[in-house]
């Protein structure tokens, strides 16, 4: 196998970056920073795949791992909160020892596998068909059973998580928006209904149109001496005011006397 100069340069740039990402992930204190370092590693792995003339694999790596899976990680970490730190209490007895043994064992296996493959020359056979086609043939023909089993496993896991989440929760009927509105209108307004704001019953938005009080009568304060004097006179007569100019005091007083308890919110 020969390596082109471009590939070598790319590898020696991206390899250390990927390694730095891994180290950063392990050593950074903040959980979100850890996740970001891991994103860096995955991006550089994707680029290395592209350098190795496997662009489909590279972009799938970026879309699936960086885009979807790490996004889920970040989502969960953000839900946990910025300042959450790891608990130092050992929940399971002997957990650390077991983790250390298993970790060292895994590292030994991987080093062994890599060491074995270094000496053996790689097969240089070109994949049948194009990049995507060759991959598709392998996944959907040769390894179809393994592929289907894996997907069944993953779906089982997802369904199981949902069952655990919703198990034991009574299936209550969701309240629709319509029911909520009707409830609010029928229920005691003093408790949780809000009173309609001024102008709800207005039929026009002109300044010349007088405001209406909740009982439908004209609010005298909204009549102006400057705008539309005729209309004001007409309405002034309708509300039973004798002199223009009196309306403020008389009307306000009479209103207070009649419906004292709701005036507070209306005037």
């Amino acid at each position, binding site marked *: 196998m020969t390596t082109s100069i471009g590939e070598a340069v790319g590898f020696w740039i991206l390899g250390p970056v990927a390694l730095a990402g891994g180290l950063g992930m392990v050593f950074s204190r*903040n959980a*979100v*920073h850890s996740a*970001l370092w891991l*994103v860096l590693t995955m*991006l550089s792995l*994707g680029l290395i795949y592209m350098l190795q003339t496997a*662009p*489909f694999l590279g*972009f*799938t790596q*970026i*879309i699936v791992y*960086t*885009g*979807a899976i790490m*996004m*889920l990680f*970040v*989502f969960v970490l*953000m*839900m946990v909160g*910025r300042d959450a730190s790891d608990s130092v209490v050992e929940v399971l007895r002997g957990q650390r020892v077991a983790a250390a043994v298993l970790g060292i064992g895994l590292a030994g296996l991987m080093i062994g596998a890599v060491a074995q493959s270094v000496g053996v020359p790689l097969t240089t056979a070109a994949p049948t068909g*194009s*990049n*995507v086609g060759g991959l598709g043939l392998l996944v959907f023909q040769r390894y179809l059973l393994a592929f289907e089993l894996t997907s069944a496993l993953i779906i089982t896991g997802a369904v199981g998580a949902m069952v655990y989440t919703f198990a034991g929760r009574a299936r209550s009927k969701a309240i629709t928006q319509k029911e909520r509105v*009707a409830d609010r*209108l*029928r229920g*005691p*307004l*003093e408790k949780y*209904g809000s*009173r*309609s704001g001024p102008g*709800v*019953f207005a*039929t*026009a*938005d*002109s300044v*010349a*149109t007088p405001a209406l009080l*909740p*009982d*439908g009568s004209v609010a005298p304060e909204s009549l102006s001496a400057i705008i*539309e004097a005729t*209309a004001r006179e007409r309405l002034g007569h309708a509300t039973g005011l004798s002199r223009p100019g009196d309306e403020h005091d008389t009307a306000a007083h009479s209103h207070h006397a009649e*419906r004292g*308890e*709701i005036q507070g919110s209306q005037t």
Partner: protein
Amino acid sequence: MNPLPPPGTPGYTQALLANDPLWLTIVKVVVVFALLLVMTLFMIWLERRVVGRMQQRPGPNWNGPFGLLQSLADGLKLAFKEDIRPVLADKAVFFLAPVISTIPAFVAFAVIPLGPEVSIFGHHTALQVADLPVGILVVLACSSVGVYGIVLSGWASGSPYPLLGSLRSAAQVISYELALGLSIIGVVLYAGSLSTADIVAAQQSGWYIWLLPVSFIVFAISMVGETNRAPFDLPEAESELVGGFHTEYSSLKFALFFLAEYVNMVTLSAVATTLFLGGWMAPWPLSLIPGVNSGWLPVVWFISKMFVFLFVYIWLRGTLPRQRYDQFMRLGWKILIPVSLVWIVAVATLRVLRNQYGTISAPVVLMVGAVVLVVAIVVALMLPDRAAEDDGTVAEPPVVGTYPVPPLDLTVPASPPRRRRSVAGSTAPETAAVGSGQKEDA
């Protein structure tokens, strides 16, 4: 110099672009970058004008002809504003987030074919920066990386509203990228290639919007969700979350977010054009004229098709209210994804049948479709109706105390008739300025 495959075969554009000298690629990159910047400035102006028109007001009309320089002035103003960083912000990530969100938006445009083969200073090349064998995946990858900018900006701001915005954004992207990817699969199945140039070439006989209408609708909806635009602008919902993820950003960092949003809009419109509207090919009546699909003219077709999508973006914003979060998620997971899964199975079945039994003529497909439709309708009619929940009449809400509630049959008065727009120095008499309430009766 690699030998070129014959024109029209898959991979031709790729080989053509591989022969580009370095200076030509740099020129193309600079032109695309400039195009996207200008499009952003223009789109901001267009959006404000069109939304203004829809809301019966003039919009920006003061700076430059038709107010065209308004967005330039706004951009300059943003650059000179103070750059504020909250005390609780995570310094590095706060700085990085706008950059992460902007760069992929530009990168994705590199795979868009703007036109066919042309000659630039004697070099035969295609109007496209790069054509990868997996071109359409570049768009998906760029959009999935770009969202990190939004998610991280909200987290790094160290304040609750942005965090809520970025949480929404993360969930939104995971949901809508699935629908986006699934809608692309139909196109890829028909074109037989992931390369954008090949997809355009495969639409020579007919655009995929007619062949794959369901894919197109799903793509169009999830495209709006992917760009965080109204009615799916939940991450920045200004009536709920102040400014969402960019609440704490100011100055050029805010400008970068703004830029990224508009560049994303332009890029995804271009992708939609490429996938479903035949890319740079001329629309039907024009395509009968010979020579209309060669040379530099197709760029015009491409840009005008792109503007159709961009206009719809603006139209949506002017028309629809923001969706509630649960409605939005339900639309994504319970409607868009199942519909696209069923659609892909149908499309794949049709493709396999066609490959196995030769060409299936259009009448056969139509007849099978009609039979399926009739069977579906018959089955739907045979299903028992859901029992009516109530008799349809809602009781008049009672008057509580002395406080009246509006009657259920309250008639809202009709809006006054729309007048001719006359912004400044109008010659028309201002009829509606005085007493519109009284004038309505007349």
